């Protein structure tokens, strides 16, 4: 079958339409460049009533929201989850990595938690700080101007706290805490754990006329139909188009490789159109990969040529290496003080927490490096599949029998409604060369493209961090006068440390650095080996932080895009 070539030569071809691709699209299109955005999934607009799940009721579905079709429940706005039909990935024996892929315009930004934390000064200098991992070739001062612009462009609520490693920004005002969050604040303060208003990208206040203001349905994971939360489609790509930008969207197009010429420079990409299963070529002066850290690594490794026999940008043999996800562990508690709640009011609030705890620990007194933040959930939430299971299980805390039937079950449901509080610890592991993804030579996807094989194991450092999380959660629940639910996971279960990948913060794989022997891109996310290919997803991250990665992906993508503009104008690339 012949490869079908498109005659247009784009200034920039952007692969992927999530945080990194969306931001590059916005900045480069606004600068007047002709841009192609190639997305492996279909078109998606949160405002389209046909696909919208926001404000649906559980009884509109025969499975009442159960997660049979979508891993996070059927209202979750992600097409694709740990598995994507026809697009497998494999594991080296004895290792694990769970890989979430959202195949749709905007990618995972359509359902993410919107927790929008800046990395702090210490987060860029991990090795200097404690000897583990590597320092970034940039520091907080390099990225700060972009975080500032980002806050204003997209909107994030929060408060100025003056914390050293949790820098303040240009915040919208936060929502007031809910009832269970007041219990959390009191419980945490007893132990000296700081609690501050959360920092999330929902509009509690108007920022422009194109986006609505939050109406507090608590359903950001369903993607907001009035664009009051950040998704890459609604907040970056659509505005770029509306602004008169030359943006051609290629949806349902799965990039196979970056094409190169005799000099080894990129000439564009080749992709498979999922509908007709034919292979096409797009030509561009610059290629920006933003397909997700692992997908971009896959494309590079699959882009083998005479000039790049080891894959594109892989002379260092480091593409795919230093793959890193946040650490995660969870616990939940039953809080008798939250029983017998009045249901006279709507406390859905914004999607997710109104308060959180940034990392507070002193590592010189701890047996692990780096830290974690605590996310909090609870409240009188919308009943969905699973609601009412083990309805009076908490009777055992009062010496009452568990089980039974009859009219009293109604009282049990109401007595315990909203009395559970849960915690998620999200922390920083250490990036290691030994944790990586590579091409599995034995497996292809349904488009004939070789797939990734993961090799990832946590070390003792991350396991010790998870133990600290569990001990902290237990203490918090105790401080709130509550009871820990379930068995506290012990050493045999790695203290409940979730599987690598499960926090959906994949970073690394094409890390940045000044030395082409020990890094894949330079500090502007430009491949050392090929000057017209850039990576603007989380691949260039040298390390994680005790923060979520999205705000930093966005800021760095903006910074890299500014550099691309400059280089194109100077005819350097």
């Amino acid at each position, binding site marked *: 079958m012949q490869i079908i070539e498109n005659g247009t030569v784009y200034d920039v071809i952007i692969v992927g339409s999530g945080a990194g691709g969306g931001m590059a699209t916005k900045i480069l299109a606004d600068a007047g460049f002709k841009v192609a955005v190639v997305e492996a999934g279909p078109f998606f607009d949160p405002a389209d009533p046909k696909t919208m799940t926001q404000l649906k009721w559980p009884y509109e579905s025969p499975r009442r929201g159960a997660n049979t079709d979508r891993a996070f429940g059927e209202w979750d706005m992600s097409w694709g989850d740990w598995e994507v039909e026809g697009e497998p990935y494999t594991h080296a024996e004895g290792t694990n990595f769970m890989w979430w892929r959202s195949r749709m315009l905007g990618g995972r930004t359509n359902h993410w938690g919107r927790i929008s934390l800046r990395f702090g000064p210490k987060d860029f200098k991990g090795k200097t700080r404690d000897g583990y991992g590597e320092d970034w070739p940039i520091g907080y001062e390099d990225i700060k101007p972009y975080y500032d612009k980002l806050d204003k462009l997209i909107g994030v609520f929060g408060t100025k706290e003056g914390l050293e490693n949790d820098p303040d920004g240009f915040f919208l005002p936060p929502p007031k805490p809910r009832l269970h969050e007041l219990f959390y604040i009191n419980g945490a303060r007893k132990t000296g754990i700081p609690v501050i208003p959360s920092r999330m990208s929902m509009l509690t206040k108007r920022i422009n006329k194109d986006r609505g203001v939050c109406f507090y349905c608590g359903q950001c994971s369903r993607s907001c139909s009035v664009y009051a939360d950040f998704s890459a489609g609604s907040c970056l790509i659509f505005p770029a188009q509306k602004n008169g930008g030359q943006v051609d969207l290629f949806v349902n197009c799965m990039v196979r490789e970056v094409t190169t010429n005799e000099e080894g420079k990129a000439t564009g990409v080749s992709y498979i159109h999922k509908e007709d299963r034919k292979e096409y070529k797009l030509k561009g002066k610059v290629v920006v990969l933003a397909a997700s850290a692992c997908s971009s690594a896959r494309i590079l490794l699959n882009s083998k040529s005479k000039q790049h026999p080891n894959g594109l940008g892989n002379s260092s043999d480091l593409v795919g290496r230093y793959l890193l996800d946040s650490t995660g562990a969870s616990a939940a508690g039953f809080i008798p003080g939250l029983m017998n709640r009045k249901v006279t009011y709507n406390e859905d609030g914004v999607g997710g927490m109104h308060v959180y705890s940034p990392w507070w620990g002193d590592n010189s007194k701890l047996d692990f490096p780096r830290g974690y933040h605590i996310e909090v959930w609870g409240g009188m939430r919308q009943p969905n*599949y699973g609601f*009412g299971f083990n309805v009076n299980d908490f009777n055992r805390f009062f010496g009452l*029998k568990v089980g039974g039937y009859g009219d009293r079950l109604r009282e049990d449901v109401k007595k315990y409604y909203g009395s559970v509080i849960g915690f998620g610890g999200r922390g920083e592991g250490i990036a290691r060369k030994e944790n990586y993804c590579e091409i599995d030579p034995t497996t292809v996807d349904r488009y004939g493209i070789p797939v990734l094989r993961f090799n990832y194991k946590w070390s003792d450092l991350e396991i010790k961090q998870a133990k600290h999380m569990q001990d902290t959660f237990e203490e918090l629940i105790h401080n709130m006068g509550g009871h820990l639910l379930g068995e506290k996971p012990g050493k045999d279960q790695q203290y409940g440390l979730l599987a690598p990948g499960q926090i959906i913060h994949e970073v690394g794989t094409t890390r940045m650095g000044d030395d082409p022997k020990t890094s894949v891109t330079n500090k502007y996310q430009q491949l050392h080996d090929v000057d017209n290919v850039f990576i603007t997803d989380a691949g260039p991250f040298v390390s994680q932080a005790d923060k979520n990665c999205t705000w930093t992906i966005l800021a760095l993508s903006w910074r890299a895009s500014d550099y691309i503009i400059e280089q194109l104008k100077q005819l350097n690339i």
Partner: protein
Amino acid sequence: MDRRKSIQTILLGAGASAAAFYGCTMGSEAPEIPALEKTNFFGRTPEELERLEKLNAEQLFDAHEMETIGVLSTVILPPRAPHGGPIEAEVPEFIEFMGKDIPELELTLLGGLMWLDHKCNTEFGTEFKSATLEQQQAICDQICWHNPDVPLEEQALEIQFFVLMRNLVVCGYYTSKVGIADLGYKGNMPNIWNGVPQDVLDQHGVAYDPEWIAKCVDQSKRNIAAEWDEDGNLLT
């Protein structure tokens, strides 16, 4: 009443009480209401719709089994005015769907229903659905108390069956329109969050920290575009 109108009606009600509570006029600051379109597929993708249609075309329970599920459901959670019970909540249909959607449930459900009739026939000479309420309760009384300290899968099938049925009945009811009304859940509606009402704070013995609240959103200014000074202080 169409969906959009109903949301507006409820919203006006909610807005009115919020304004009364906070003693300010919030009429001009009403949240925007997304355009909701009546659809029959709750945002499904074509692939998901296809799977739904396939499941809907399958039959897991025969008429007798569906009737038995209906009867057992109302023993577990008797109807109560004004919000009805499992039948009004379409719990039997929900249970059948879940038995197909999650195939691991199938054996426990089918086997448990057979056990129920066998037990009732043995003790009372009648199948469960035709027995008197006293007889049905006599059967349920024998299986409704599981041991919470032993993993459920290590307990007898009929015990597992009853736990599963109770879970599905309570869940099915409280995720239905009538059940949500019974619960009193007020969410899933556009509204303006302005904190926990004072009587609720008092009931639970907590209070807002004035310093914290001072930093929170002033909902009367939510529609005024944000502007900051160069140090990030919000000016509007």
